[in-house]
């Protein structure tokens, strides 16, 4: 079965910057690919090539089986794009925005009107339908932008950092909308700097950095590449640290890491929560008092850090038009400890 989105060896340079340095990817129909990477990694440039906004220097790409360079207008009628900016006209009302987009997708005025109404209701904007978008909150504008991308029920959707700048409540709401779309069979390519977003929404993840796909797989596969699970525990009494290490030895799948001053021990294990229970029993049998214990699986943060050598917010802007100020740098969550 042909993938709904396919890119082969895309290269694009802006002056000295190689924004895309041979990007290849494919997205099977009905699945979600998360394109994960820092600012300037080439995510937006990839989306711009696939949505016919930008001609690559070399390489080829197809969307819904159509070559984006040879049949750009046919591709355009099959895709929806929701960009980093809420691309709505703030002096038009929500309804007018959607009708305009519908008519430019070449729907009849009547169909465009009916579809606008449907979308306004679906996106919970019906009450604000006849207010100008200028009066909308950030979350409402994003919803309107996404609605505009869905006017023709496109089989293939591109979303470029759809939740950047949204508060957690609006982000969750948007995730639900996206999941709903995917359930209905839409193929989606989503770019994000948020690891939890890729983790939750994407079937497959492609990690991009410096214009290249540096890793590809499901979230679990990627996590597995940097090692399995670990038990992390904090011993109550400093003089029991050595004893605890020897108690852990039979379960360990590698050398334990010990931080004396915080009394923290991290040890690689396998076997999940059963091992955790066994470890707790063993420590109990030896009467070692513990303050804290837990099983830790690697997060995408860890994956990202180990793949790129830098955290997600690090690299500022390569060549996608100098729009760094809209993307908010964001600290990593679920911070990995020294281990």
């Amino acid at each position: 079965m042909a993938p709904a989105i396919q890119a082969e060896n895309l290269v694009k340079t802006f002056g000295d910057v190689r924004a895309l340095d041979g990007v290849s990817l494919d997205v099977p129909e009905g699945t979600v690919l998360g394109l994960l990477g820092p600012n300037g990694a080439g995510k937006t440039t990839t989306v711009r090539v696939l949505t016919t906004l930008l001609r690559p220097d070399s390489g080829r790409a197809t969307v819904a089986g159509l070559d984006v360079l040879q049949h750009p207008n046919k591709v355009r009628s099959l895709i929806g794009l929701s960009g980093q900016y809420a691309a709505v006209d703030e002096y038009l009302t929500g309804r007018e925005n959607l009708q305009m987009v519908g008519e430019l997708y070449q729907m009849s005025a009547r169909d465009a009107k009916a579809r606008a109404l449907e979308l306004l209701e679906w996106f919970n904007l019906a009450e604000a339908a006849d207010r100008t978008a200028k009066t909308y909150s950030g979350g409402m504008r994003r919803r309107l932008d996404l609605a505009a991308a869905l006017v023709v029920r496109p089989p293939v959707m591109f979303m470029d950092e759809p939740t950047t700048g949204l508060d957690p409540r609006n982000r969750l709401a948007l995730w639900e909308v996206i999941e709903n779309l995917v359930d209905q069979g839409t193929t989606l390519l989503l770019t994000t700097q948020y690891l939890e977003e890729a983790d939750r929404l994407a079937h497959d993840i492609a990690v991009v950095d410096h214009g290249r796909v540096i890793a590809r797989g499901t979230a679990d596969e990627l996590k597995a590449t940097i090692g399995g699970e670990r038990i992390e525990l904090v011993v109550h009494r400093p003089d029991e640290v050595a004893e605890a290490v020897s108690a852990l030895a039979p379960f360990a799948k590698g050398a334990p890491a010990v931080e004396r001053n915080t009394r923290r021990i991290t040890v690689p294990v396998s076997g999940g929560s059963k091992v955790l229970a066994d470890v707790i029993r063993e420590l109990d049998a030896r009467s070692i008092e513990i303050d804290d214990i837990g099983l830790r699986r690697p997060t995408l943060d860890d994956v990202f850090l180990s793949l790129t050598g830098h955290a997600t917010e690090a690299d500022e802007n390569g060549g996608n038009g100098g729009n760094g100020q809209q993307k908010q740098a964001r600290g990593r969550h679920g911070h990995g400890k020294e281990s």
Partner: protein
Amino acid sequence: MATTATEHAIGRAVPRQRTGLAAMAHDSWVVARRNLRRMLRIPEIVVFGLMQPVMFVLLFSYVMGGAIQIPGTQASQDAYIQFLMAGIFAQTVTFATAGASAGIAEDMTKGLVDRFRSLPMTRSAVLVGRTLADLVQTAFILLVLALVALLVGWRIHEGIWKAFGAFGLLLLLGYAFSWIGALIGLSVRSPEAATSAGLIWLFPLTFVSNAFVPISSMPGWLQPIAYWNPFSATVQACRDLFGNQVGPVDDAWPMQHAVPVSIGWSLVITAVFSWLSVRKYRSAAG
């Protein structure tokens, strides 16, 4: 498979197939309507677009009118206002350029141009729609300005049809210049830069002309430039058609054939700059 994807898309929202000119007219109209709605909702733009020329009429006629002597007349406020108005009209339509450049630059930075470019619509429609909406705005401003001018003593002497002809030439010039504005808007990085870039070159263009003072009063080396200035041709043509010409028309060829020269310049500017703008729009890297 690709085919199932296609069927899915067409499932409900059946895109109507328009081609060629019909598609361009439809898409341009949709965009023009959008821009006209914006203008109604931001009336400040039209109001400020009006204030500047009205202020010029009052300042030039009352402050400078008594001092500038038009060949063949005594220096007076009344004689000068007859001479002045064609220039003010022409300057007003060319200043509309800044609106096109700022508007398009704003659409670029807000991502709207990307949205339009990702839609299956005619490539030129975003720019055609914009320039047509500007034309409507320019026509409205001209109308109000003409009424103000009549109040301060400006008159037409060649009949209403020739006056309409003059306004037609002015609108044609304004349309041509809005394409220059479109190119500027697509080329600069911010709406603020577009506003200044859209205006700054208009000052030498409109002042090195017959708009405010007779060209014969300029230094010799400057005169050919002023005579061949596209702006001067339209101003002279309007003076002819309004019957505002006092004394003989200057001997320079473009002045003697002002109406065809004005039309020619406007058509050439429109052709060149619309081609450049559409080409720029297609490849806009945003």
